[in-house]
């Protein structure tokens, strides 16, 4: 069977775009040991995060954005949609980032715009991972004809270019609000990580501890839920981060084109309006620069976390520590 092997994930392979196939997150080969398991993994994860600077940066950024999304009113005091201020004003004490061409406070827009983006990211991350897990693990575990059908289905969806498809779907819908965006982006994203999860589930299928569970007489569902899935924790986390990352980029791009709901306040829609009002030419560069930077920052948060998890799971990728000072000196 012509199998496309486990694809890599962004952050680790570091992409917002091209996902290489036949690579696990991190672009390396499958980490031995199937990743970190179960409940111990949470403690180990936190320890690992704290020790890895990439992970701390990423986690820090993510937490920052979550806080902003949860409590926008605390930080920005203006209504982001209210077009009551002077138009296209530069930054000042009253308007930290100035105002848009419509007279809205830009700072408020950026702050309030965080929530929809984060919602989409987390929504897609979660749902795509769940779907990918269900299909990937089922395909691996059921094997045979089921595997063939599910895998083929996944492969076909995987290979059809996602963004053009998104554009076509969104165009028929005449624009997509937050919920629709989540649904649509999930639909084109899940196949990617389903492949990875299936690969790993396959490699786990014949491992001894599963054989032991079978011999004990446990039912398939039990084995899948209690034994297989916890072992795949690291890959599931990677899948979540990868999908969240893609979601941020895809949804912002769709909104930029105008296929989101232009009336919602979000970073992508801000960019849409900025571009439509010739922000650069009229000296409103901030209108384009700031939302873009936010997208990069949030994306980077996910990507760095993903990359750091790769290093944690696959020690070969870590920065090489030189043995200077311990080496025996060269002979004269």
């Amino acid at each position, binding site marked *: 069977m012509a199998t496309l092997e486990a694809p890599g994930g962004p952050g680790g392979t570091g992409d917002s775009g091209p996902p290489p196939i036949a690579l696990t997150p991190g672009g390396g080969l499958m980490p031995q040991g199937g990743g970190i398991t179960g409940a111990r993994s949470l403690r180990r994860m936190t320890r690992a995060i704290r020790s890895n600077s990439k992970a701390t940066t990423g986690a820090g950024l993510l937490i920052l954005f979550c806080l902003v999304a949860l409590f926008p009113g605390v930080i920005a005091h203006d209504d982001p949609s209210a077009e009551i201020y002077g138009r296209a004003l530069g930054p000042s004490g009253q308007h930290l980032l100035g105002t848009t061409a419509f007279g809205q406070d830009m700072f408020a827009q950026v702050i309030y715009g965080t929530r929809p983006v984060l919602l989409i990211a987390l929504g897609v991350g979660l749902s795509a991972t769940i779907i990918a897990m269900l299909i990937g693990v089922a395909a691996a575990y059921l094997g045979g004809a089921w595997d063939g059908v599910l895998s083929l289905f996944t492969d076909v969806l995987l290979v059809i270019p996602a963004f053009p498809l998104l554009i076509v779907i969104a165009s028929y819908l005449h624009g997509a609000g937050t919920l629709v965006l989540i649904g649509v982006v999930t639909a084109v994203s899940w196949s990617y990580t389903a492949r990875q999860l299936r690969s790993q589930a396959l490699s786990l299928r014949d491992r001894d501890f599963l054989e032991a569970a079978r011999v004990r007489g446990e039912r398939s569902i039990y084995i899948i839920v209690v034994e297989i899935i916890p072992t795949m924790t690291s890959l599931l986390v990677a899948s979540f981060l990868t999908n969240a990352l893609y979601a941020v980029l895809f949804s912002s791009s769709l909104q930029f084109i105008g296929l989101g709901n232009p009336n919602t306040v979000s970073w992508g829609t801000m960019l849409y309006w900025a571009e439509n009002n010739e922000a650069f030419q009229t000296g409103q560069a901030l209108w384009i620069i700031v939302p873009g930077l936010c997208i990069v920052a949030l994306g980077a948060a996910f990507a760095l976390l993903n990359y750091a998890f790769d290093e944690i799971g696959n020690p070969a990728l870590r920065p090489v520590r030189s*043995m200077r000072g*311990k*080496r025996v000196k060269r002979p004269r």
Partner: protein
Amino acid sequence: MSSAPGNDGRPGRAAGNATGTVLEVSDLSVEYAMEGGTVRAVDSVSFDLEPGEFLGVVGESGCGKSTLLFAIAQLLVPPAGITGGSVVFRGQSMVGLTDRQLASVRWRDLSVVMQSAMNALNPVKSIAAQFKDAMRAHGVTSKHEIADRSAEVLRMVGIDPVHLDSYPHQLSGGMRQRSMIAMALLLTPELVIMDEPTSALDVVAQRSLMVQIKELQEKLGFAVIFVTHDMSLVSHFSDRLMVMYAGRVDEFGPTRQVFDAPQHPYTVGLMEAFPSIRGPRVPLTGIPGSPPNLASPPPGCRFAPRCPKVMTRCREETPELYHVNGTLVRCFLHAEEGGGDD
């Protein structure tokens, strides 16, 4: 030996060490720099190797024997590194040299056979291409010479040269291992280091490969360091036997002596774990416990926690290697008998 290409007339070639030995390893130590601290995988190992000698190195997994091999061949990769001692090969000190400086010695005088040919052979190059690589790197450029020699070494290990154009995955396991050995003999080196080359094979193939190796060795006269966990296998073929435990040499002497009259409790334990196929039936005994964590080894003798003959002294002081009838034994039981060594 001088029929092989590339071996003649090299200027300044040392004719072996001053004392005639091919290899002198003194106090060699290798450490791995891990996150939790350093792990000393090889701890002050010393031995000499005569030309044409077959040395067997045995021990359980994790005792440092493979690390020792790679250290001798200067093939360690970070986080592992040599942190002490010296390796003198044919009069030339090897430790600390760069790959480029070692290139002329490599393969021509010292070659390596690894455990799994499937992993050690480049999957995208044919056997012939991999042979050619080695020869061209050492100055053999004539296509005829390369082709002739490649066919010759394959025949030496019992493979039809028609397989030269095959890729590794097209050969059977046994054939792959043999090709690796053939490759190691391309430039008729003085020393061939082998890391468990038979472990991946079935018992029958194992034995026939061992016999072949021994025959080649006797015919071509190269020395062999053969690392394995299978003591009974190597003891039929080796001149001397070295038993390693937890990074240290615990027993070292002529094979027959070590095999027939083991002195170290660990060696004794290993012997008793291999029941004889003839002779009286004896209950199967193993060695209780497991090897120590080398990140924090036990004080004193490293075998003490598992030793049936342990004394208080063993847990406090580290035994040296003592002479016992021509064998070196690292055990306080024999401390009074001979003088200490190293």
